[in-house]
């Protein structure tokens, strides 16, 4: 791609200070970014020479509307193609780009190596979470959480895990007609069926008419680490998580 015409080169810094996005929006935006933008711009947004999406190297665009228009129409004569996003996808993507810049301007403090040791040791995080193929799949995979969440949100999740729980992180509990109890993280649900990953990491699909009981569990199944980790340890853990930015290409 011609670096002068990459996505970042048309963005203005002021565009990224508009409305706040919720955590689910940010995650959806991250998915849109990961699937559509990283091939040219890289996971951190800085793969094109002279351009840094997270660092705020923007030139022309003043508003979110301008940015959305450039993304939707592409830049003729360059490798930047038009993208046909739904309105909610575009909103999520813009929110995510704002988050990238926030993380860049206000990097988390702490020591990532100490944070990793806590994650894999004292914190016991691998008992529920997975990072780069290591750990349990029951809880959310955190391999790219540093792309999805800003440091402030990660700290909140550690200290107050129930404060904001994205719907894709909720757990459910079902009892079959035969009395078998099935519990796990809900992956998908409609009026007739529910899909989940159970505590033995099996993908399970249940037909609701075949269930004696079914309930979506409110709140987070993760314990708060307030008082279990020192503030310095929390800072290190957050720092480690912000460095989790997906899988590198070989």
């Amino acid at each position, binding site marked *: 791609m011609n670096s002068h015409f990459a996505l970042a080169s048309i963005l203005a810094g002021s565009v990224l200070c508009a409305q706040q996005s919720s955590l689910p929006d940010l995650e959806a935006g991250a998915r849109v970014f990961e699937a559509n933008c990283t091939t040219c711009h890289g996971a951190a947004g800085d793969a094109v020479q002279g351009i840094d999406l997270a660092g705020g190297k923007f030139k022309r665009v003043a508003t979110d509307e301008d940015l959305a228009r450039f993304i939707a129409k592409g830049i003729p004569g360059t490798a930047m193609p038009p993208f046909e996003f739904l309105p909610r996808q575009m909103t999520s993507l813009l929110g995510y780009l704002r988050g990238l810049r926030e993380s860049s301007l206000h990097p988390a403090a702490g020591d990532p190596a100490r944070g990793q040791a806590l994650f894999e040791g004292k914190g016991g995080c691998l008992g529920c979470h997975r990072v780069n193929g290591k750990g349990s799949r029951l809880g959310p995979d955190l391999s790219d959480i540093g792309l999805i969440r800003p440091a402030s949100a990660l700290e909140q999740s550690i200290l107050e895990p129930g404060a904001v729980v994205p719907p894709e992180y909720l*757990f459910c509990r079902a009892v079959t007609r035969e009395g078998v109890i099935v519990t796990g993280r809900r992956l998908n649900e409609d009026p007739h069926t529910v*899909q989940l990953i159970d*505590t033995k*990491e099996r*993908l399970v699909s249940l037909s609701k008419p075949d269930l004696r009981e079914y309930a979506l569990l409110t709140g987070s*199944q993760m314990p708060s680490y307030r008082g279990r980790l020192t503030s310095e340890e929390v800072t290190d853990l957050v720092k480690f998580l912000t460095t989790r930015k997906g899988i590198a290409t070989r």
Partner: protein
Amino acid sequence: MTAVRAWLLFAVAACLRAQVPFERLVNAVKEPQNWLTHSGTYNGWQHSTLDQITRENAGSLRVQWIFQSRTAEKFETTPLVVDGVMYLTEPPNNVLALDAATGRAFWEFTYRPAPSTRLCCGVLNRGLAILDDTLFMGTVDGYLLAIDSKSGKLEWKTHVADYTKAYALTHAPLVVKNKVIVGPAGGEYGIRGFLAAYDARTGNEVWRFNTVPGPGESGHETWGGDSWKNGGAPIWTTGTYDPDLNLIYWGTGNPGPDYNGDVRPGDNLYSSSVVALDADTGKLIWHYQFTPHDEWDWDSSEVPVLVDMEWQGRSRKLLLMANRNGFFYTLDRVTGRFLQAKAFVKQTWNGGFDENGRPIRLPNVSPTKEGRVMFPGQQGGTNWYNPSYSPRTEMFYIPAWVDYYTTYNKFEPEYVPGRQYTGGAPRSDVLGGSRDTRLIHTRVEGGYGAVRALDALTGELRWEFKMGDVTDGGILTTAADLLFTGNRDQYFYALDARNGALLWKIYLGGNIRSGAMSYQAGGKQYIAVAAGSGLFTFAIR
């Protein structure tokens, strides 16, 4: 902490068994409820031992659920099914995990390849491989991906080949032991083909076999001048594997440029061949070239089917292939020795075989500037879509393009990286690429599409089922002597595998460009096939 929460934390298994170890792949025939490799089993039979759907009840087949892809690209995938979960690819390179009984999604993995990929025949993907808890997929922009089968999360991503030079990965990988084996498409763009194995855990390359040998490699002498540099011999379908011999068998594509052989004097090994490689090292054990110095685009990208049969009084390990050049071949898969070849459609290029099995090429068969009429046509007597072998009927079933021709011309090719490098523009009365209209006006003299059932031992035609158009649909057979296939006429058919009698059909409203497969979920046998932009599943009521 709530009671539920505490229970969850303690219930998580610390060390869970891998779901699909290599041993399950080797013994896939013992678990017919699943479909663990691209062809169902390593031998490439595309044959299910399920028998709940029978000749008697096939007329009661009904749609169970439909998966609608979000693409207008060709949908050529054949899914895997593992313990009630279906894994399939959606063009260009998305992956989904679905409940095999309802079609509801567990997760979806989305991948947007580089926007400037170059593929001759559609931005498509044909399927996945699985080992332990990891799925493997090649991408149209030249990467091999490892994806967690439980979560849909990317585990590793390895660069295989340069898409700016039109290398692309379109076929389902083959997993053998701890290796994932793939090769690139791009035979119309002057690529230099190869097969490469990657460590399933790390994604690191373990071995590479060049299907166009370079200086110092055996076979290099079959390429005049520097023609080897753009010699083609791509890989775009999945090979087969014999665990006892530890050999993989793989068909290779056409040499480049496709239609003008003047610039590449020689046999052009290992194009339009089958190669047998040591699965651990990639070392070439033997090869057989079906079409030396191919000038008609007759890729040997058909499935090398592995069958053990009595041959002239003794049990023998055979390799059967219905080739695009119009012949049905029988080789000894231990040694590569040519045993037999018999034309299964009209052909005008071959005058027989010498004592070593080398084809005797008739005079005046090369493309000319003015154009030369040849049988079979450019799409071959068959092509990449899979055949099937049934051990019950001992028949070999071919999706055939019967008795049609192409006028082959040639022109001076110029190699420009990333651009087509074909050296000709063949013309045919039969649509080459695909049918883009629902209106069919075929002419009898223009050839036709059919299922042709051959005696697997002799190659003699046992029966034929004519379809409404030429075909891109693979074939599935089952232990109930059923045969399933589809066609560009957009029907999906169930036939009696013993005699070709039509038992059931359904109009799906889209071209069928893949091989059907079968699995069992919730005690029910399903048949699944991609058609148009959807994946359709069928069962008895």
